């Protein structure tokens, strides 16, 4: 992490650092929310949990890295290519792995994507080694009222919000979006209404992949890429989706900010690991208190 708070920077009161941690958490929450939206969309429509979702992000980050830092493509072009690439990847995952197990027990579906996680991490290790690679874009840190905010995080937050809004408009306003929402409510009936379930599943997987690709571009600005970076975000994203209620978009969005605040405030007062312990423990407790998500009636 190249933008964590550094207590020796200013002479301001300690509270400012707490505010800084909270702002950092808020900004991180945006990207987590984007990923939670993608995973939730796939769960809501196809009814499968992609355990390897965060590893699609890892693939996207490598795409940005190679295209931009190695082949010298402009960052914007590399980002678009990465988004398209991961979207295509999402379609492949659906065709090759999810479609054959659609009729199996839910836990087998979960484990099939668990195998994908294993495969992607090992394959990335085989191709790229375990080196940490940086895209090499240095963005400034800006100061607002004594608080230092990383520009990369700010961009990530805004882009993630825009992505979420675009998804919302697509699902609400377009014909295809309406069909996707309908199929997530009643899988059987929609076939009778003339909606091609297979096609909707493919489109949903592509959108889910594209969201992972967008998150990858945004995270590539803040973190080094390595084959196991998915493990940093993966478990967090499931927690967020489940907290929000699997398939519940708004719930996932809110839960992303709750979790990211716990992590950044916990990280400020204690240590990073401990803040994760706190987040996971809260997750377990909330699962018992509100098993169908924080927004469940």
């Amino acid at each position, binding site marked *: 992490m190249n933008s964590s708070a550094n207590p020796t920077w200013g002479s301001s009161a300690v509270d400012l650092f707490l505010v800084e941690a909270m702002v950092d958490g808020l900004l991180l929450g945006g990207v987590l929310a984007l990923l939670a939206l993608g995973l939730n969309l796939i769960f809501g429509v196809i009814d499968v949990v992609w355990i390897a979702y965060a590893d699609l992000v890892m693939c996207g980050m490598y795409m940005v890295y190679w295209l931009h830092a190695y082949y010298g493509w402009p960052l914007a072009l590399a980002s678009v290519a990465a988004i398209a690439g991961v979207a295509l990847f999402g379609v492949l995952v659906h065709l090759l792995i999810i479609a054959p197990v659609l009729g199996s027990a839910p836990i087998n579906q979960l484990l*099939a994507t668990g195998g994908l*996680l*294993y495969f992607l991490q*090992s394959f990335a290790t085989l191709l790229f080694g375990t080196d940490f690679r940086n895209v090499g874009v240095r963005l400034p840190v800006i100061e607002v009222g004594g608080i230092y905010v990383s520009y990369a995080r700010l961009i990530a937050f805004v882009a993630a919000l825009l992505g979420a809004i675009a998804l919302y408009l697509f699902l609400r306003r377009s014909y295809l979006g309406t069909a996707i929402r309908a199929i997530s409510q009643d899988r059987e009936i929609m076939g009778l209404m003339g909606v091609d379930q297979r096609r909707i599943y493919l489109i949903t997987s592509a959108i889910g992949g594209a969201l992972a690709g967008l998150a990858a571009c945004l995270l590539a600005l803040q973190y080094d890429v390595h084959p196991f970076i998915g*493990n940093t975000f993966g478990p967090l994203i499931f927690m967020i989706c489940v907290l929000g209620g699997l398939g519940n978009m708004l719930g996932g969005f809110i839960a992303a900010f709750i979790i990211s605040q716990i992590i950044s405030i916990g990280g400020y007062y204690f240590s990073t690991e401990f803040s994760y312990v706190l987040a*996971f423990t809260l997750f377990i407790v909330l699962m018992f208190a509100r098993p169908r998500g924080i927004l469940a009636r």
Partner: protein
Amino acid sequence: MTARIAAAIAGLAILAALPSVVPTYFLHLLIQILLWGFIYTAWSLMGRFGFVSLGHGAFMGVGAYVPALLWNYEGVTPWLGIPLGMLLSALLALVIGYPCFRLKVVGHYFALVTLALSQVVMLVIVAARDVTGGSLGMTQKLAGHSWYALQFPEKGYFYGIVLVVWLGGLAVWQWLDRGIGREALEAISEDEEGAASIGISILREKLRVTVVSAVLTALGGALYGQYLMYLNPESVSGISVSLQIVFAAIAGGMYTLLGPTVGALLTLSLTEGLRVYFGTHFIGAANTIYGILLILFIIFMPRGILGLIEAIGARRPRATAAPAE
């Protein structure tokens, strides 16, 4: 039936005789197969009734670290440390299992709650790096050849211990199978309300099998630590080892007595074979192929190798009887 018993006795005799004939490297592999086979069997005790836990890394981690820490810092013999770790695992299983079963947290949700548990245990081990060495891992203080410290430089001793423990795991499986518990649990996994209506205490049966599974997994973790004399949070706790347990148990077949052990045999020979074949030039090559095979397994053989063999045997009843080994 007598043929099965004869086969079992012959198999045991071979297993008991093996250390004197095989080279050290293969003895090392055999120990690992039996040890992991025991852990996979422990997981399958729950898994076969539909409670798919991704949290067994938590029980393994507690079971491995408690005796190692007590030995290093307090000089407490593993003979006390291991039962203590098992007890703690049992408590952990109760703390998670009771609300899960009470509030009907099942399927995906159960898998994810237990996944969170295994992450919590791993992160606590990493965070307590002052005593546990964090992600760098820790080694137990050496005591040479000692029953008191449960440390043996010669592999033969560990082979004997692990063989006995593995047989104990199979006995526990049989014991759960024989008792009323299995029928109750099968009834529960098919129709929970129906089972409750004929007077089966769902909660008690589920908790019993969960605690037994957790305690055995902790014992497996402890022996793993005592054998390798090195512990690392990633290798005994967290998401990766939890997934490893689930995959191997499923690959072998979690519904049959020897299935999980066959899973250990398969996965370990596969990883070792690939590792030897690819050497160290292609880090990750072996695991890449392993990952592809896992996906294929889940897609084409959800009941595992032994499950498949049994299914074929059932379709052609005149062919060879169910394999004993």
